[in-house]
């Protein structure tokens, strides 16, 4: 029997629809195909511009990959922190005012801390792509999530991976000289190194620690002093330009350490490999990296290589991509752009098919992915191979490093 629609029925239906809309907390209903507005905060200018722009590369190709994974699209709103903490704070405020429903960023720990404060105050989720300072996820924040290793995690894995490398190659240096850039980053890493090393039984003793001026353009004295220590291995915390300068000095002063072990940036970067050619082969860097055996990692690598030929996939790309992956995945499960619903969904994230090394992406009660693992990568033939941990590697490590005068 057909039901006739009379005026009473029509008004009742209309009232019901209006009530449904009114009782929804924010009146937001995700319409079919609506995109999440994601504010991506990076240092696109200032001293860290190169890194920020490098992170942004992967932002440009993430949309296609998310679509392949059946995840919703993201509306990216770009913000420039200008490598400055105060600007980072104000940009975060601005993006939220302009409608950003979730924030991603910001590479630098200082800037990220400022953005985290804004995100928490405004109740907008922040998914940190890269920032290693431990305190960020120790504030009891409910809207801040970090899918990146803290400095102690990076250092701990570095020692574990070193032991694995020494075991696989049968070569273990007995002495090492630790050289670090004399700024906040370098000094923090040096303190962390000393603190975490005591928890491992390493085969080497640190014969000398040498700090060098970050503004120095000539590191011949530093390398001479390192060579004079008689150490077999060189452990480095440096930046890109310093890595190039130090390698030049190693060659000129005819010192080929058994191993160059880097705990920071520089030694694996494209510019280092391109500038030094075969002289850049050999150093092992202990860094947050991707698992080359994971399916999504291969997809990302292929998409990245197609979009940016000649540029190796690196930490900046991997973790920025994963931050956006977390955002899209949470949005899909939340079914809503409501900030609290998003935050709850992020907290319940369980992505096993990811890119970075480790069992996947999950967050603990503090919003930290504490299960992340870090890798050891080695320069080989102008490319980077993953040599540890064993389950996430695609090559065997080579030690001792080939002497510079034999290349």
């Amino acid at each position, binding site marked *: 029997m057909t039901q006739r629609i009379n005026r009473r029925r029509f008004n009742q239906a209309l009232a019901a629809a209006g009530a449904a809309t009114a009782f929804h907390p924010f009146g937001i209903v995700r319409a079919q195909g609506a995109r999440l507005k994601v504010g991506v905060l990076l240092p696109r200018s200032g*001293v860290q*511009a*190169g890194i920020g722009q490098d992170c942004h590369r992967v932002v440009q190709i993430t949309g296609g990959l998310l679509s392949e994974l059946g995840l919703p699209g993201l509306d990216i709103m770009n913000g420039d922190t200008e490598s400055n903490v105060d600007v980072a704070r104000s940009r975060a405020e601005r993006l939220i005012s302009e409608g950003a429903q979730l924030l991603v960023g910001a590479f630098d720990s200082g800037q990220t801390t400022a953005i985290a404060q804004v995100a928490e105050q405004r109740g907008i989720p922040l998914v940190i792509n890269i920032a290693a300072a431990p305190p960020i996820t120790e504030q009891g924040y409910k809207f801040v999530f970090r899918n990146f290793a803290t400095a102690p995690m990076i250092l701990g894995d570095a020692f574990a991976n070193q032991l694995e490398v020494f075991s696989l190659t049968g070569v273990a240096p007995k002495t090492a000289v630790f050289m670090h850039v*004399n700024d906040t980053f370098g000094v923090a890493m040096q303190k962390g190194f000393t603190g975490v090393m005591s928890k491992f039984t390493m085969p080497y003793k640190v014969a000398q620690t*040498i*700090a*060098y*001026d970050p*503004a*120095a*353009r*000539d*590191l*011949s*004295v*530093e390398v*001479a*002093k390192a*060579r*004079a220590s008689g150490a077999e291995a060189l452990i480095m915390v440096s930046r890109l*330009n310093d890595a*190039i*300068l130090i390698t*030049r000095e190693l*060659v*000129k*002063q*005819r010192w080929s350490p058994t191993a160059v072990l880097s705990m920071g940036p520089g030694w694996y970067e494209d510019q280092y490999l391109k*500038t030094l050619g075969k*002289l850049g082969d050999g150093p092992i860097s202990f860094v947050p990296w991707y698992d080359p055996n994971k399916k999504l990692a291969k997809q990302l690598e292929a998409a990245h290589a197609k979009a940016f030929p000649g540029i190796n996939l690196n930490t900046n790309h991997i973790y920025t991509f994963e931050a956006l992956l977390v955002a899209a995945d949470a949005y899909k499960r939340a079914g809503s752009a409501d900030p609290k619903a998003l935050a709850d969904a992020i907290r319940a994230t369980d992505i096993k098919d990811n890119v970075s090394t480790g069992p996947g992406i999950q967050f603990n009660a503090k919003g930290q992915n504490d299960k992340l693992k870090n890798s050891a990568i080695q320069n080989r033939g102008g490319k980077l191979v993953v040599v540890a941990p064993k389950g996430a590697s695609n090559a065997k490590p080579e030690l001792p490093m080939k002497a510079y005068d034999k290349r």
Partner: protein
Amino acid sequence: MPIEIYLNVAASGLLTGLVYGLMALGLSVIFGVVRVVNFAHGEMMTLAMYLTLVLFSALKLDPLVLLVPIAAVMFAFGYLLQLGLINPFINRPEHSQFMLLVALALILVNVQLIVFGPDAQGIRTAYSFDSFQLGPLIVDASKVYAAGAALVVAAALFAFFRFTLLGKAIRACADNYDGALVVGLNVKRLYALTFGIGAACVGAAGAMLMAVIDVTPEIGPAYTLLAFVIVITGGLGSMPGALLGGLLIGLTEALGGVLFTPSAKSMFAFGLLVLVLLFRPQGILGKKASG
């Protein structure tokens, strides 16, 4: 620490010091004659380094070959700068000269930032990674060539001031300004020539330094300061003093870094400066002020 480490570091410091000395020589020449303290000295050197970078990229010529045209370009730059901009300030209060040249320095740094960006840039020559071994001594080939070229340029400069009529005329201006006017010397032109020669020195030093280190706009101010430290140590207005000052500062920084801590290398150079100011304020080879 083995003795050869100290020898190697000392050799490296002396070689670098010779190039620094040539840079400071330009400052000394300018002050000695024109009585203008060039607060844009280091920035002019980075300008020369960038010129070297551009020409090397375009022509693939060794920086030691490019030294001649770079010096010529910087000579023209210095000559026109003196004639057009600095000359009106010669008789003005010293703070006016200071502000003018500091402003020029800021302009140069920011133009370099805009044009070349903030990243360090270098050149790779055939000998960039070479070194010479003489027994226990290992010496950087780039520094040996740069230091050799610095000695040749310095020798040419000394010869110019000592044996040529033009050089003698410039020295006459420095020794007795009024007397130079009286005998009919074109002092304005000679001042411009002198500034050009000083700029040519810094241009040559820049070309040589490009073979040894990378360039960024921000190293300009650091080298201006270094040039001052060197000429004050050696004696303001004394050409041999500038070279000696360069050698001493290069050696002090190198040995201080290896004996104590490399991150505080510059501290030793300033320490030497303080000692000189305390015990010989006119500089090691400078002349005491009369009266």
